[in-house]
């Protein structure tokens, strides 16, 4: 059953249909939120708020865009709000030990260099301006096209390209410096 059909059923009170939509997008949205916010608990809060708002606002979703894009737009707004709140209490950087607490088997399936890269990426990402981090994650993390990102966050494609370029310019030396420490 496709997203449109699931949304229609969820609007009519079928909670299992909405749960199927959550199943489909929870991990993908969680990955973006965690990388954007740099903190697992904040990412979990962002997802909780995103899906609750989406459920309450199902009547406001129109099929002109993909349900996934609609969810992403809500999530980005939630992440921006949480980042502003977090900014007032100081930044927190995620480390993989925190992730491994809930996923102890993961280290057996990933090389040490993967974890080093992830740690370095975590630190470097949190040092980027939020709008640069957001553009970089959507472009080179999620692999979205500039047109789609533009419609998601309401910024022109040329401005987005500049943000991604600036993010790359800032990220690359930081990552390389960390890898040589």
């Amino acid at each position, binding site marked *: 059953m496709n997203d449109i059909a699931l949304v229609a059923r969820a609007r009519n009170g079928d909670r299992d249909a909405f749960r199927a939509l959550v199943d489909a997008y929870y*991990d993908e949205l969680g990955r973006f939120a965690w990388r954007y916010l740099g903190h697992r608990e904040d990412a979990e809060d962002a*997802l909780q708020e995103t*899906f*609750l708002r989406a459920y309450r606002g199902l009547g406001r979703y129109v099929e002109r865009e993909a349900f996934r894009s*609609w969810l992403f*737009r809500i999530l980005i707004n939630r992440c*921006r709000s949480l980042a502003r709140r977090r900014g007032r209490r100081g930044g927190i950087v995620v480390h993989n030990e925190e992730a491994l607490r*809930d996923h102890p088997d993961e280290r057996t399936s990933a090389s040490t260099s993967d974890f080093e890269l992830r740690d370095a990426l975590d630190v470097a990402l949190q040092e980027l301006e939020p709008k640069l981090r957001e553009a970089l994650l959507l472009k080179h993390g999620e692999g979205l096209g500039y047109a789609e990102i533009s419609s998601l966050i309401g910024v022109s494609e040329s401005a987005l390209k500049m943000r991604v370029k600036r993010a790359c310019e800032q990220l690359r030396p930081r990552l390389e410096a960390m890898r040589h420490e």
Partner: protein
Amino acid sequence: MSDPENKREAWLERIREGYRSTPPLGPDARRRLDDALAAEPRPGSLGSIVRWWLEPRGFAARPWAVAAAIVALLGVGVLVGRISSQHPAADDGRAAMARSGSASADSMTVVHFTLSAPGAASIALVGDFNDWDASATPMRQTAAGVWSVSIPLSHGRHVYAFVVNSARWVNDPGAPLAPEDGFGVPNSVVVVGWPRGT
């Protein structure tokens, strides 16, 4: 591809790999979400609507953009108020615009929508007044490339858009846009029933 470009692509690929290897969020969080969703009233129910209205929300905007939006909304209000005391104007055939015509009831005003779209096979008006139903309010071509429709609207603020060829949604280039509220792309705004005589 040259070597520097290859190196750059390899570097971005590593970024992508790092991103994609992000572990999933904890199962406890997913359980909390399921519990919260189970406690939610059914979408569209009175309880759900009340919750939506009571939910705190905010948006970030540049001060100059807010000021421009206020001026634009006031301008549309004045325009609607002035035109509503006159006969509906003829299409100018250049830009889209929502205009109010004669009042059909105390709380309703006929609003005339036009869109210049040469080459379009069909255009429909969608908005909060017809549940965004693209089949509810088809527009008809009244002059070469000019599509229009008149509908009675209740007084107040309405958001709307046009659907071109049953597929492409476009905003009204002659109207201000509603601020983004976290749910979708901004739509056009018309304010009906602004005090007359302004």
